[in-house]
């Protein structure tokens, strides 16, 4: 009996539409996040993550509607991230039906936003993002603006601080690995996972099922997030679970 490694597909949503699409068969509208969420629910995803990349205010309103419609038909935990800057932003998403909110850049400029949300809604609903790049062997820094802007903040220190402020889990993304399909930054993931008591989600760079397994066995992550390997039909959620089980890790049957 032990808690399962969570496999979490992540969808990029802009103005209420999925940007990086899923080529599930049988979808009437492949750009509709609700339909994709439903497909992942049926496929047995352990959780789902929406990352909102809307630039506009209207896009945010549309996002709330998407979250509301998704919550009506999906019965797995839903994390929504992107543009969460305050406890008020978090409240709007939680009321719409998100189970957790992921805080990204706001947690860099104002880490207290994490404790604000944790105090009001509980640590269980706050996922703090750690977006990092390696700056020298064994040292990583927090980067913003999609990995283009250095902040000078040490990633490990920042991660420990976010956990202390009340984050219920940390989403650790290697900005070096993101989009490369070369696998997670295992040293980064492990360095943070070993230093905090909350679960760590590995993110950024998954290209195959072995990468998911390594995220846990070598990165010490509690959950593995991926986008393209699932969206483009390269692998199913069931195959991911199977690969984890084949490596002796607990995963859903």
């Amino acid at each position, binding site marked *: 009996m*032990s808690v399962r490694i969570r496999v979490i597909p992540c969808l990029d949503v802009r103005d209420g539409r999925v940007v990086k699409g899923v080529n599930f068969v049988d979808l009437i509208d492949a750009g509709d996040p609700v339909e994709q969420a439903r497909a992942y629910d049926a496929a047995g995803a*352990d959780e789902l993550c929406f990352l909102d990349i809307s630039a506009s205010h209207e896009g945010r309103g549309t996002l709330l509607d998407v979250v509301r419609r998704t919550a009506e038909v999906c019965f797995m935990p839903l994390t929504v991230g992107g543009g969460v800057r305050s406890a008020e932003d978090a409240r709007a998403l939680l009321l719409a*039906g998100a*189970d957790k909110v992921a805080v990204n850049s706001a947690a860099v400029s104002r880490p207290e936003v994490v404790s604000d949300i944790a105090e009001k809604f509980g640590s269980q609903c706050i996922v703090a993002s750690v977006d990092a790049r390696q700056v020298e062997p064994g040292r990583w820094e927090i980067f913003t603006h999609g990995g283009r802007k250095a902040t000078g903040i040490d990633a490990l220190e920042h991660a420990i601080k976010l956990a202390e402020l009340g984050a219920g889990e940390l989403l650790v993304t290697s900005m070096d690995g993101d989009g490369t399909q070369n696998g997670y930054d295992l040293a980064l993931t492990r360095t943070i996972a070993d230093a905090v008591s*909350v*679960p760590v989600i590995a993110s950024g760079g998954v290209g195959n099922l072995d990468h998911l397994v390594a995220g846990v066995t070598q990165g010490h992550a509690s959950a593995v997030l991926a986008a393209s390997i699932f969206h483009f039909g390269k692998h199913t959620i069931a195959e991911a679970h199977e690969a984890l089980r084949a490596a002796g890790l607990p995963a*859903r049957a």
Partner: protein
Amino acid sequence: MTLALIDYGAGNLHSVANALKAAGATDVAITADPDVVAKADRVVLPGVGSFKACAEGLNAIDGLVQAMEARVLTDKVPFLGICVGMQLLATRGVEHGITQGLGWIPGEVRLLEPADASIKIPHMGWNDVIVAPGAPLVAGGEGYFLHSYHFVPEDEAHVLARTAHGVPVVAAVGRDNIVGAQFHPEKSQKFGLDLLTRFLDWQG
């Protein structure tokens, strides 16, 4: 059949309402009104966040706990508590200081403290639900858990299901017409929806 889903400002109310509807409920009243609770055929108490905040939220509503007690303890309509809503069944919780619970199932809600420091808290994710022999309503399978505190009942007979996260964890408690689930049926896909469907049919 009217189901009163208790709205006390602390719940993940809409997720539970959505799941109840998907499980077949036709008349879900999201309510804090003691008069609605007094006439309900089913009572569901959701809850996320801290024991203290949830207990305070519940007690802050005039007459609500009394109406729940009359309807559940005296009239014996089926009751389901979820996550912190399950933990509130206990005598007391020790999260952020000692807070009194409903006391319907004697016990205490304590921090999860696995001896192995590599075990992560919160207990977050899908885990086994192992059912005690003869337990009503709850079936074995995998449910989604998300909590840092757990229910330690005084009487083993009140344990309906177990799991483990470094330490043994009570996954469900109950007696008579009362059931509480530590996991989230509303977030446990088919396993959870099936439990809710059985709850809607349950005569307690």
